[in-house]
């Protein structure tokens, strides 16, 4: 240990006597406070979530009523929906942007931008991130990127239409796609978003490694922080690969190079390898944080320690590691050497193992618990149930021969939505609701949340479960008008049913949005620890002041000491000194 004292180590804790005298702009717009940045990310990504959902509704209109004019759809213009009839190129833009926006601008920033920012310093006991200004840059780069991505809808010849995977050469050559600047905007926007994610990841990793409070050993970290830590490592290592691939794509698009153009010596499959080398870790970036949130909330709801905490951490790490060696399973039918397919199938199958560990450990956490069904708990239980279905459909797709009929059909669409909506998004609902009192000092209306939960659960399954059936029947994804195929003509009724369910699903989300916005101003005041939870963020006021903690917290135990014999109450905060009773809290607001 060096004896040189370096000022970099000094962190400012909150002083209640010292009023927060930052200007409005510094406090709420160009803020370096991790909590404000988290909330900024929150509203940005919720906006994109809404936009992405609206795009999906347009897609479902076309699939439910192929070629039928959408009432009022003509307002979108002659180049998109002339007379309300959707054009195929607009359909392709819609499904491309639905995927891109949901993955890069809704789910990823909701999981990482919002919760990594908000939770990590609070859960490790730090006053802020390691690099607050870098953190601010991360948010504003994401805004720039989002604006560029959205701008694509308004440029000549429309937005990117080569799918969110943007396979070359379709994404490169305008004569093939009919898209000109839209495709370039897509590429540039994602390059910028990559820098934003990178800035975030450097911050999260450094903060978790270096800024933990005394006593906060790695195996006392709450699981959300663990999940976000591993997610950050994935971002750190995966995003640069995407950036490299995107830069080559951009050169092909604007400078006339041909990295992915066979006539010029390029390789179309190189794009796929580079994209999926990033893309599969990306899938785990989109689910691991939800694993963390759900573990936290299930333990809280069950009033029990997480079953097999260490195994949970190891499983997270194992999933993240395996995520690097399975990318080829997206390319089984791509013309890749079939022997490689066998290898990728084997590694892909192995991922089921750590995933099974997590699922059984969640059930183990419920076992002999005292289950409080507050709304975050309901969302979390739905997460486990839906994610399991997404995992099982993954086994079908992982098996190379079974993938032959299922690849690029609605079976894949069902799979990704069971994982991303049934999984990630239920996890996000759980987390948004669970940490709402901490973020805004108020509580959401529990009854409305439960209505939202019930509607979402029902309509989610009515929307996406039948898609398995469509896929097994062979219905292709990314197809504007499947009735062109004689084989799929009798699928119209089922598609129409799915579309109606999807509309109801979308409408149900508006209930949550309304409740969220209403609760921001009118919700009941929240105490510091309404869920009677253990981790450090619940030891500070709701919302926490600038600088988070009055003084440095000291941690004595892990985060899941619920129903511990040490305590009279059924919870035991991480910073409560041994043999000291937990702070008195009012009765829980859920029931």
């Amino acid at each position: 240990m060096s004896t040189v004292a370096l000022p970099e180590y000094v962190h400012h804790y909150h002083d209640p006597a010292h009023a927060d005298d930052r200007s409005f702009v510094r406090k709420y717009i160009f803020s370096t406070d991790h909590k404000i940045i988290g909330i900024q990310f929150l509203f940005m990504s919720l906006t994109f979530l809404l936009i992405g959902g609206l795009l999906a509704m347009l897609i479902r209109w076309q699939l439910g009523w192929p070629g039928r004019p959408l009432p009022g759809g003509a307002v979108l213009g002659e180049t998109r929906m002339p007379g309300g009839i959707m054009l195929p190129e607009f359909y392709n833009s819609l499904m491309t942007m639905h995927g891109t926006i949901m993955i890069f601008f809704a789910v990823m920033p909701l999981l990482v931008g919002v919760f990594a920012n908000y939770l990590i310093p609070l859960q490790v006991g730090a006053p802020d991130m390691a690099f607050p200004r870098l953190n601010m840059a991360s948010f504003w780069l994401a805004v720039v990127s989002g604006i560029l991505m959205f701008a694509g809808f308004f440029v000549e010849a429309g937005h990117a239409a080569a799918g969110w995977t943007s396979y070359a050469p379709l994404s490169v050559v305008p004569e093939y796609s009919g898209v000109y600047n839209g495709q370039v905007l897509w590429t540039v926007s994602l390059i910028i978003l990559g820098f934003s994610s990178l800035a975030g990841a450097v911050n999260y990793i450094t903060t978790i490694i270096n800024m933990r409070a005394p006593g906060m050993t790695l195996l006392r970290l709450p699981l959300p922080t663990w999940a976000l830590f591993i997610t950050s490592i994935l971002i750190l290592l995966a995003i640069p690969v995407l950036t490299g691939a995107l830069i080559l794509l951009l050169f092909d698009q604007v400078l006339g190079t041909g990295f992915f153009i066979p006539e010029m010596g390029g390789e179309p499959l190189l794009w796929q390898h580079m994209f999926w080398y990033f893309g599969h870790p990306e899938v785990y970036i989109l689910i691991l944080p939800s694993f963390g949130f759900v573990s936290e909330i299930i333990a809280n709801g069950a009033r029990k320690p997480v079953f097999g905490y260490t195994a949970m951490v190891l499983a997270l790490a194992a999933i993240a590691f395996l995520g690097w060696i399975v990318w080829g399973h997206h390319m089984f039918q791509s013309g890749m050497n079939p022997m490689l397919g066998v290898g990728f199938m084997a590694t892909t199958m192995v991922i089921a193992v750590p995933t099974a560990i997590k699922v059984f450990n969640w059930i183990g956490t419920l076992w002999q618990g005292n289950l409080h069904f507050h709304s975050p708990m309901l969302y979390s239980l739905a997460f486990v149930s839906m994610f399991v279905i997404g995992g099982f459909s993954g086994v079908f797709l992982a098996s190379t021969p079974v993938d032959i009929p299922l690849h690029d059909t609605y079976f894949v669409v069902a799979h990704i939505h069971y994982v991303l909506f049934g999984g990630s998004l239920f996890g996000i609902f759980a987390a948004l609701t669970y940490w709402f009192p901490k973020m805004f000092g108020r509580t959401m209306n529990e009854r409305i949340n439960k209505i939202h939960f019930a509607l979402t659960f029902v309509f989610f399954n009515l929307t996406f479960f039948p898609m398995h059936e469509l896929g097994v029947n062979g219905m292709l994804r990314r197809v504007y008008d499947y009735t062109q195929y004689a084989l799929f003509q009798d699928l119209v009724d089922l598609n129409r049913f799915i579309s109606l369910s999807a509309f109801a699903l979308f409408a149900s989300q508006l209930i949550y949005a309304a409740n969220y916005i209403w609760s921001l101003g009118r919700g009941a005041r929240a105490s510091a620890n309404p869920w009677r939870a253990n981790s450090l963020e619940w030891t500070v006021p709701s919302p926490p002041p600038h600088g988070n903690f009055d003084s440095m917290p000291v941690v004595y135990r892990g985060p899941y000491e619920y129903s511990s014999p040490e305590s009279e109450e059924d919870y035991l905060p991480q910073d409560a000194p041994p043999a000291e009773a937990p702070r008195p809290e009012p009765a829980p607001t859920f029931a």
Partner: protein
Amino acid sequence: MSQAAAGAITLYPRRPMPGMGVYNLKLGMWVFLLSEVMFFSSLIGAYIILRFANLDAYAQPGAVLNVPLTAFNTFVLICSSVTMVKGFAALQTGDQRGTRLWLLATVFLGAFFLSVQGIEYYQLASEGFVPSASSYEAEGAAIYGMTFYTLTGFHGAHVTIGVLALIFTSVKAFRGGYTPTKLGGVEIMGLYWHFVDLVWIILFTIVYLI
């Protein structure tokens, strides 16, 4: 646990946790460099794949590229790493003048490297080796030019950023901005510089020698 209750501010003790034993800035730079490793890996990977797919399109070492000139340039860049180390060592012993001079030397060597690379590009371009398809006569050369300029160009961009950052660091050093107890800026500058140097050695081997 020492809490210096100096006025309104509570100070973290020097090392609150058994972390990595390095301070934030240095850890952050290490973490960032990991992502840079992945970035260059992706470009180098693309280069290798494209080269194996178009073996005929790539010239033999020395047939197109000026290997001796670039070997000399590589030597220059390695020297700049040495001067960087010297600068940091001088700062640790409190030798302000040495720090400034070694930093300036590093700036000079970095800029020299870039100039030689610029001259090399100019020569190659005037011989017809440009990164587009139509201008170079050799068959299949498009892919060679594209990958060559992309790889070396991205490294050049990193060196450029490094030189600009070194100039900033040097100015700060001349203003006495670094002391033996406050040397984080120089140390992370060095980390970045050594990384860029290391990447070049790999690129030189792959692009010029193999």
